[in-house]
């Protein structure tokens, strides 16, 4: 007697679950991520527990421990920085300038930058900190 294997039914794989999971992940990463321009060098912000929420908008100046600068992710020198900040302040005098300096940066660099921005007419300058160890 010859037993015949029953014919396997071709199962239709549904992609609905895949779409659900992908949508969930997409929305999750869109909500919790920040699309800030990253600096071309590593910056570890200082630990500070009394900071307030970082508002969106404005310009971000990254400062490396050796004093290298990057404005909104693009490397920049001091002369070009002054010109760029002056232009931004002329367009909007209330422009927020965020200084994202490495925690090991010497204060002579950071405080000089703040003084420079004040002389250029900036009204709002903030230092970026992180409430948790990076």
């Amino acid at each position, binding site marked *: 007697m010859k037993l015949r294997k029953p014919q396997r039914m071709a199962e239709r794989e549904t*992609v609905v679950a*895949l*779409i659900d999971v*992908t*949508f969930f*992940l*997409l929305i999750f*990463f*869109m909500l*919790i*991520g*920040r*699309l*800030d321009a*990253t600096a071309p060098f590593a910056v570890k*912000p*200082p*630990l*500070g*527990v*009394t*900071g*307030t*929420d*970082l*508002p969106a908008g404005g310009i971000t100046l990254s400062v490396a421990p050796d004093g290298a600068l990057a404005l909104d992710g693009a490397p920049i020198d001091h002369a070009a920085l002054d010109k760029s900040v002056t232009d931004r302040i002329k367009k909007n005098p209330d422009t927020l300038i*965020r*200084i994202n*300096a*490495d*925690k*090991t*940066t*010497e*204060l*002579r660099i*950071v*405080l000089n930058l*703040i*003084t420079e*921005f*004040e002389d250029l007419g*900036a*009204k*709002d*300058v*903030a*230092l*970026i*900190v*992180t*409430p*948790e160890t*990076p």
Partner: protein
Amino acid sequence: MSGFALKRPARRHTLISVVSMIDVMMILLFFFMVTSSYLNLDMVPALQKTDEPNADPAPTTSTQAGAPSTVLIRIAPNGTMAVRGQNVTTDSLTALLKARLDADPLTPVVLFPSGGAQLQDLITAMDTVTKSGAVRVKVIRLGAAK
């Protein structure tokens, strides 16, 4: 009499492919995963100017009756804090500030960091001062003579 009836052609069952939608979603997902920063960032105001004149008058160093006396905190290049020439830890500084702020909640606190100190030292000092309850905090530095 023979008539004729028009029959609608049966609708073809069209299948909409979701493959391209999945492709686009995957590209967006990878884009957000790679380009976003997930570090929790806050900010500490370093300079805030208002258009109102004398909105925040400079702290006075006067010790006259009725005028608050300033607490000056120096920060050495190695990060050590000192008040009136005495080195202080964060705990002793907190106790000192609380005693002064209990007497006068508007006591001005001035931070005078060395240029060789690191940013973390200044932020630590600012955290200590803020947690003590000081509301008039300033950072000063020595400027070049003009």
